[in-house]
C-alpha cells in the first residue's frame, strides 16, 4: 500500500532522513520507534507532504505522491495526526470535526460520519459545543483522531498519540487504535516513544536512529533488547 524508497529529507540545514525505505501493507499497523531527533516526525511530515523530500520516492497505491501538495495527499486517503494533537483550540468540537471532513462535499455523507465518530468517541458527542481548547488532554487526542477519521482515510499516520496522557488514557488509546485497525480496516503507521505500547499495537516495527532505519522486523520477532540496543547505539548499522 505504501512503499517508501531511499527517502532523504532536510529539516532546515540538517539532514533528518537518510535514505529511508519502509513498507506499510494494507490493513497493517506499523510502528516507527526511535529516540528524539531520530527523524520519525520528519518521516511522517514527508509522507503527508508538509516537508518536501530532497530525494527518494513514496508510492501510495502505485501513485507517486512525492511533490504533491498536502491537501491532494489527504484526498488520496492518507491522514496525518500530528504530534501534540494540533486541534483547533478556538473552534468548537463540532467545527473541528467538520474541518476533518473538509475534503468531502456530500452533506449526508458528512452527517453519517459525524454520527459514526460520535459513536466511536461518546465524550466528543457530549462536548460538541465546547471549544477544542477546553477539552482535557485525552479528549483532545480523541478529537484529533476523530477529526482524522472524518475523511475516512485508508492510511492513518499517528505521531506520538500517547504523549502527555495518563496511564488510563493510554490504555484507552490503545483500544481505540486497535479498533480502528480491526473494525475499520485502516492501515496505521504509529510513531511512538512508548515502545511497549507500540509493540503491543502493531505487527511490524522500524527503529530509527539519526535519520536512518537501523532495525526492522515483525513485532514478534524483534526483542525488546534489540530495540534498546538500536535506540542507544545504532552504531553497528551506520
Amino acid at each position, binding site marked *: 500500500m505504501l512503499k517508501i524508497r531511499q527517502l532523504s529529507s532536510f529539516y532546515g540545514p540538517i539532514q533528518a532522513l537518510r535514505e529511508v525505505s519502509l513498507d506499510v501493507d494494507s490493513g497493517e499497523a506499523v510502528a516507527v520507534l526511535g529516540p528524539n531527533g531520530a527523524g520519525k516526525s520528519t518521516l511522517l511530515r514527508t509522507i503527508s507532504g508538509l516537508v518536501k523530500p530532497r530525494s527518494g520516492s513514496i508510492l501510495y497505491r502505485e501513485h507517486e505522491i512525492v511533490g504533491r501538495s498536502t491537501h491532494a495527499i*489527504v484526498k488520496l486517503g492518507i491522514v496525518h495526526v*500530528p504530534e501534540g494533537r494540533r486541534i483547533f483550540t478556538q473552534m468548537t468540537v463540532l467545527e473541528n470535526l467538520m474541518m476533518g471532513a*473538509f475534503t468531502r462535499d456530500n452533506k449526508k455523507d458528512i452527517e453519517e460520519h459525524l454520527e459514526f465518530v460520535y459513536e466511536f468517541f461518546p465524550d466528543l458527542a457530549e462536548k460538541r459545543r465546547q471549544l477544542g481548547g477546553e477539552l482535557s488532554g485525552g479528549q483532545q487526542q480523541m478529537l484529533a483522531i476523530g477529526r482524522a477519521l472524518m475523511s475516512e482515510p485508508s492510511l492513518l499516520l499517528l505521531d506520538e498519540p500517547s504523549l502527555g496522557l495518563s496511564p488510563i488514557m493510554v490504555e484507552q488509546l490503545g483500544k481505540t487504535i486497535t479498533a480502528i485497525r480491526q473494525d475499520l480496516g485502516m492501515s496505521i503507521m504509529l510513531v511512538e516513544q512508548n515502545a511497549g505500547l507500540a509493540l503491543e499495537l502493531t505487527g511490524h516495527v522500524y527503529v530509527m536512529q539519526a535519520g536512518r532505519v537501523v532495525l526492522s522486523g515483525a513485532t514478534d520477532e524483534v526483542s525488546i533488547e534489540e530495540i534498546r540496543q538500536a535506540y542507544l547505539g545504532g552504531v553497528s548499522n551506520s
Partner: protein
Amino acid sequence: MSQELSVFMQQLFNALTISGVYALVALGITVIFGLTGIVKFSIGELLTLGAFLTFAFWEGGTTFFLAVPLAAIAVGGFSLLLERGAFRFTLDQPINGFIVSLGLILVLQNLIIEIWGVGFKAPIRPFTQVWEVGGVSMPVQRWFVVWVAVVIIGLLFMVLRYTKYGRAMRACAEDRDAAALMGIPVALVIAGTFALGGALAATAGGLLASLFAIQPFLGSQYLLKGFAVALVGGLGNVEGAVIAAVLVGLTETMGSGYLATEWRDAYTFGLLIAILLVRPRGLFPARGRLQETLQ
C-alpha cells in the same frame, strides 16, 4: 437637546464614520496577518488604488454604487497577483514579507502617480442631502458609509463563522500545518485572503472617495491608523479590530473636538502605547501557533 449634548452627539456621529473606515482597513491588515504573519504595509496603497479606481469607473460613467464593488474586485485580483508573484515566497520569513510590502509602497504609489498624476480628485457625492436632527448635522453620505461598513463587517463575520471557506480560513490562521493535514488547500486560502484583504482596503478607499478629496498619498495616513487599530485589537483578531477601530476613532475625534487639536496624533499614539504596555498583544490577542512564534 442642550447645546453641549448636541455637540457631543455630533462628535459621536463624526467618530462613527471614521471608525467604520478604520475598521475596514484594519480588517484587511488583520486577516492577512492572522494567516501569514505578514504585516502588509502596502495595503495603504491598495486603499489609494481602490479610491482612484472608484473615481475612474465613476468618471467613465459607472454609478458610484457599482464603481466601488468593481474597484474592490479589481484591487482584490491585483492583491492576489501580488501574493502569487511575491508574498508567497516570504511565508517562511514574515519579516521579509513586511519588507517586500515596504518596497511595494514605492512601486504602487509611483504607479498611481504615473497613471493619475499628483493632483487631487474632488469627492464623488451620490447623496448630497444633510439630515438635521436636534442640532446634529448628519450628511446622508456619511450614514451610507457607516452602513456599508457595518454590512461588510457583518458579512465578513458570517462568512468566517458559518461558511466552509471561513472555517478553513480560521483553521489556517490558527495552525497552518494542521489545516493542511485536514485537506485544506492552504496556499489557495492564503491567496484568497490576500484578495479579501485587498478588496476590503479598496472598499475603504472607494468609500473615502465619496467623503473626501483623494490624492496619491492618501493611503499612508489610513495605513498607520489601520495598523494601530489592528494592533490595539490584537493582530489577527477580527472582532478585536472592530472594537479597536471604534476606540481609536473616538479618541481621535473627541481628542480634537475637546482638546488641543494639534496634538491629535499624540493622543492616538499615546493610547496605543498605553494599551500595548498593559496588553502587549492587544486588547483581544489572537491565539494561534503563528501568533505565538511571532509576538
